[in-house]
């Protein structure tokens, strides 16, 4: 087990290094480079030369990369051009909110996806199975933002029972947990509905396949109860790969969160990124690409390790 963990960690290192390179190079895509971006309309040849020198941008690019990497390790992600805060402060403020949204959605989505998938696999061909397949297909093809808009128009404007966006009530003196939870309902529901669709399709297929395996027939022949067969034999084997699937869905979830945060005006990483893109605030953009990339690699690593731990057949060597 320890060997597996070590091996996976070592394999992730080159990817992590390449992500830092990508994020380092991104800002150099900007025509004129970071200096022109920073100075904007104030740029004169003399100022550009001064700033280029003082920022160390006249050094060879590899040297610049190593210096930048050294600063990263010390937690210096740079300073925002437009907001008076360091990139790390801003990310530290917004990242927990996005993680709260995404992780809550992943958990709830799983409960539903597994329940629906298992029900369908054990009731194949019934009208409920067909109806659920149709519904899931529809949800799977649904644009995230449209679903969000519909939920807002129904629950916030028509019925007026849930807030339409933000994370606190505008009139509250202090942020309250109750208000936060109320504000989470619609964005989480949107994310759950779109992710549940793909995952429940997956559970239905793998459960249906597991139910006709020899080991399930053996268990039934031994006289194991229907529930025992489902839970102890079929379920365990069918659901293991779901762990990997969740790891692979992380980029999709983060992408989805940009759109959802936009629809619900939810102040997380997506909204921070969107605002920064509009203001051409490159250090923030660079920092977020880096953090999200690293989180995704770590998430996949965790999924891999959990998979190896949960399935003793996997040994990777």
């Amino acid at each position, binding site marked *: 087990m320890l060997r597996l963990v070590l091996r996976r960690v070592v394999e992730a290192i*080159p*990817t992590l290094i*390449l*992500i830092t390179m*990508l994020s380092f190079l*991104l800002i150099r*895509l*900007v*025509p004129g480079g970071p200096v022109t971006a920073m100075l904007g309309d104030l740029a004169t040849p003399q100022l550009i030369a001064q700033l280029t020198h003082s920022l160390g941008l006249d050094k060879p690019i590899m040297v610049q990369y190593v210096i930048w990497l050294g600063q990263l390790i010390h937690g210096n992600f740079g300073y925002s051009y437009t907001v008076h805060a360091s990139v790390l402060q801003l990310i530290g403020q917004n990242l927990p909110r996005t993680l709260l949204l995404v992780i809550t959605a992943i958990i709830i989505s799983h409960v539903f996806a597994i329940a629906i998938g298992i029900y369908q696999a054990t009731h194949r061909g019934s009208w409920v199975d067909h109806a659920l397949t149709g519904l899931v*297909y*529809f949800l*799977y*093809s*649904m*644009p*995230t*933002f*449209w679903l969000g*808009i*519909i939920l*807002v*128009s129904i629950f*916030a*404007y*028509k019925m007026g029972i849930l807030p*339409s966006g933000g994370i606190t009530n505008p009139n509250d003196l202090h942020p309250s947990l109750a208000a936060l939870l109320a504000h989470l309902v619609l964005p989480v529901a949107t994310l759950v509905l779109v992710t549940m669709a*793909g995952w429940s399709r*997956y559970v239905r297929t793998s459960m249906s396949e597991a139910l006709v395996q020899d080991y399930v027939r053996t268990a039934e022949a031994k006289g194991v109860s229907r529930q025992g067969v489902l839970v102890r034999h079929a379920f365990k084997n069918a659901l293991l790969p779901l762990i990997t699937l969740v790891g*692979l*869905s992380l*980029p*999709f979830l*983060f*992408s*989805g969160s*940009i*759109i959802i945060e*936009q*629809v619900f005006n939810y102040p997380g990483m997506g909204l921070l*990124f*969107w605002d920064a*893109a*509009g203001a*051409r605030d490159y250090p923030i*953009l660079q920092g*977020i*690409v880096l953090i*999200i*990339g690293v989180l*995704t*690699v770590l998430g*996949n690593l965790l999924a891999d390790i959990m998979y190896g731990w949960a399935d003793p057949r996997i040994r990777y060597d």
Partner: protein
Amino acid sequence: MGQPLTAEYLVPEAPKAEGRYARSWAILRRSPLAWAGAVGLALVVAFCFLGPALYRVDPMKVDILGSLNPPTATHILGTDEVGRDVLSRLMLGGQVSLEVGFAAAAAAIAIGVAYGLVSGYGGRTVDTVMMRIIDVLRSVPGLFLLLFVDSVFKPSAGLLIILIAFVAWHPVARLVRAEVLSLRERTYVEASEAAGAAKARVALEHLLPNTMGTIIVTATFGVADAVLLVAGLSFLGLGLPPPQPNWGAMLSDSMAYLPRNAWWLVYPPGIALVITVVTVNFMGDALREAFDLRLRQDRTGA
């Protein structure tokens, strides 16, 4: 005595592409899913491209006094915030959404197939490096990269196509590579190599035609994803510049009028998007069944 042993018997024949796919065609023609998808998509295309010929209302004509009107006999789907006709804008917006979606998917497939072929057939070192690059791209959510690049350059339809192709090609590349890795161990490929065929020739003559099933299926799902991505980007305000309408931007504009329950702005573009995506996915599923493939979609976002 039996037949003389000639070279023909020693070199196994590669499966002929036509023969291999004849069966798939037969399955496809009998598949209700394929028919539903093809007919549905044809209707969507006809609506967007032929509709304006039948429904002759100017999609750009502003009428401030008649703004935000619910559906009436003159404006079948009502009017938007400046009094423009929603139905005719839906048709015009659909044209852009479909064109960009299809073009982006085609570009993504072309890049992905070329990359996958080289990676799968180019040897171990090349493969490792090329797959590592894909690992990195897979770790950074596509929408973040798109937003970044979009903040740097001026938006246009051409840029949008390039951007979407850039985030959508790597799932294709991975699938093609996996297929090539298994194909290159086949006897007919080894035979062709032993006979002295150049690598490029083996790749184009044997590997490419036999991955066609995978390519067609991923291309189909790719179109659905690209249409969603175009809409998502336009929704974020980063797609195509106004006044040219498109479905994503129409939905984004509708948000401001939610408190007034302007449902005719919210539902038509969304329904048009869902119908497009569902019919394309129908075709993808039917094709997947016909080619007997097990592929999972890697979704890019939106």
